[in-house]
């Protein structure tokens, strides 16, 4: 009996797990192909592709940070503010004449400490939901950033500080011309995403982060120190936001009060489009990458076609709803056995 039932499973049903894993990449590829046909000369040009990567570079760090938090069924609304505060501290440190390696290190430290503050607050104050703690720190961190900078931009960094966000790797030795360089931020994004993939999928702590998102009681019963892991997760999210600040410092050459305003919403949107679930325990690093790229490519493509920024807002909103609806449909198929 059982054998017959297995044979009856159609190819469509068998492909569901693969679709679950790689479906969002298919959407991404369709978008790329579509835009290529609509803008054949510009869209896939070296210049435009590197532009897209540069544009999504700091957002992708925030999205990755928020993703780790979402896996634990939490949320971090303060990533944009953490980035702004880290950027302001970086700018002040740079202006004080500190050595470049201190200036580069400082946003990472500030970001991590802000994240740790979130994590400890959630755990020690026993907040009913991380939403509340991080909503509070969204205001606290941005306010602090404005207090220390006087609310005005601080501009002009040395080349070493700007290297991560603005550096170029010359590819003329490959026979390419000078405009075809590799932005340093692309290498950074690729390395950070790879490290996070390795961490979440191949280490015990990473596995426990997924377990906490799946069933925190199970994690506790298995002897996992859930509170400790949560503090690590929020600290990591803060650290990645600090990375975002470092990249933005290089790109903008300035610390400015509006840096990262509403960026937490973009970060959450990228995670949701990439298949992460607010209920925790679901989603992949690859999905987040796809989510970030879909948003970046959509904005880029619409800009190339001279579509107004207002329409871009409408379309990104629609994509969030559609992406989650596809997920709902997929779950329906998965449970109907």
């Amino acid at each position, binding site marked *: 009996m059982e054998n017959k039932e297995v044979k009856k499973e159609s190819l469509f049903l068998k492909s569901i797990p693969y679709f679950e894993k790689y479906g969002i990449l298919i959407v991404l590829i369709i978008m790329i192909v579509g835009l290529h046909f609509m803008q054949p000369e510009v869209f896939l040009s070296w210049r435009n592709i590197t532009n897209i990567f540069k544009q999504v570079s700091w957002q992708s760090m925030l999205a990755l940070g928020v993703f780790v938090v979402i896996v634990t069924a939490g949320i971090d609304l303060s990533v944009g503010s953490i980035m702004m505060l880290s950027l302001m501290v970086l700018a002040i440190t740079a202006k004080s004449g500190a050595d470049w390696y201190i200036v580069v290190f400082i946003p990472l430290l500030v970001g991590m400490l802000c994240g740790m503050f979130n994590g400890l607050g959630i755990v020690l104050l026993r907040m009913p939901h991380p939403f509340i703690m991080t909503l509070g720190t969204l205001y606290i961190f941005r306010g602090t950033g404005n207090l220390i900078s006087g609310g005005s931009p601080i501009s002009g960094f040395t080349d070493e500080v700007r290297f991560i966000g603005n550096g170029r790797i010359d590819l003329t030795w490959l026979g390419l011309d000078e405009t075809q360089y590799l932005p340093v931020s692309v290498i950074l994004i690729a390395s950070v995403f790879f490290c996070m993939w*390795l961490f979440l999928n*191949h*280490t*015990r702590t990473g*596995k*426990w982060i*997924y*377990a906490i*998102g*799946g*069933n925190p*009681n*199970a*994690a*506790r*019963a*298995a*002897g*996992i120190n859930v509170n400790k892991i949560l503090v690590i997760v929020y600290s990591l999210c803060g650290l990645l936001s600090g990375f975002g600040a470092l990249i933005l410092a290089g790109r903008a050459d300035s610390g400015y009060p509006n840096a990262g305003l509403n960026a937490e919403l973009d970060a959450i949107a990228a995670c949701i489009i990439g298949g992460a679930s607010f209920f*925790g*325990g*679901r989603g992949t690093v690859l999905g987040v990458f796809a989510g970030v790229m879909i948003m970046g490519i959509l904005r880029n493509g619409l800009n190339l076609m001279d579509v107004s920024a207002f329409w871009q807002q409408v379309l990104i909103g629609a994509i969030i709803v559609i992406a989650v609806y596809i997920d709902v449909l997929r779950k329906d198929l998965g449970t109907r056995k």
Partner: protein
Amino acid sequence: MNTSNKIILEAKNISKYFGTITALENVNLKVREGECLGVVGDNGAGKSTLMKILSGLYKPSKGEMYFYGKREVLESPRDSQNLGLEMVYQDLALAGNLPIGENIFLGREPTKSFGFLKLLDYKKIKELSEAHLDKLKIHVKSSDQKVEELSGGQRQAIAIARATAFNSKLVIMDEPTAALAIKEVSKVLDLINGLKKIGVSVIIISHRMDDIFAVCDRITALFQGTNFAESELSKTSKDEVIGWIMGKK
């Protein structure tokens, strides 16, 4: 039955007070190797409190516990796990989003070292968990299947597999069949009988007389926080045990 006379766990004169409330008063309990002990009692009789004390979640106000004749003081569930005592929780402490194998090894995952990096050994997780499932005769399509895709009975089986994966000597189960469809109950009961055959002792808390009489060797009844009655299974009847639960002898 494979019951020997070796006593693996003995609790002596256990009392537990929560403020002015007496949850347990001078309760005694013994479990032999390979034996299944049924603990019955009405709601509030102290069954769950007693099990939480045995597993190290609560500390007794008075009384002593002996594992293999040696006195032990449990500070946390980790201590009881190290002594070979595992608890299967009523709410099935499994993470639905993780595969079967990873649930069995959750918190105790084997790793491989790559220089300073310690990475999960997925191959070992798969091999060890499938060997363990085979040993318990638990049949699943693959240990890579996610737990949320399983039926209630299969999940209960995985929870029991998880509790017995690390050479445990005694497994405490709180209402193991309460949430199951009728046709799945017998599979879980078979699994419990299978555990006894490989020398693992079981304590079952249950309201279902059918379950108790299908797997237990001995029954002990608690009533208002005290030992009320105890008997070998063969020397009692369902009606008598139901009487004990209600405080009648």
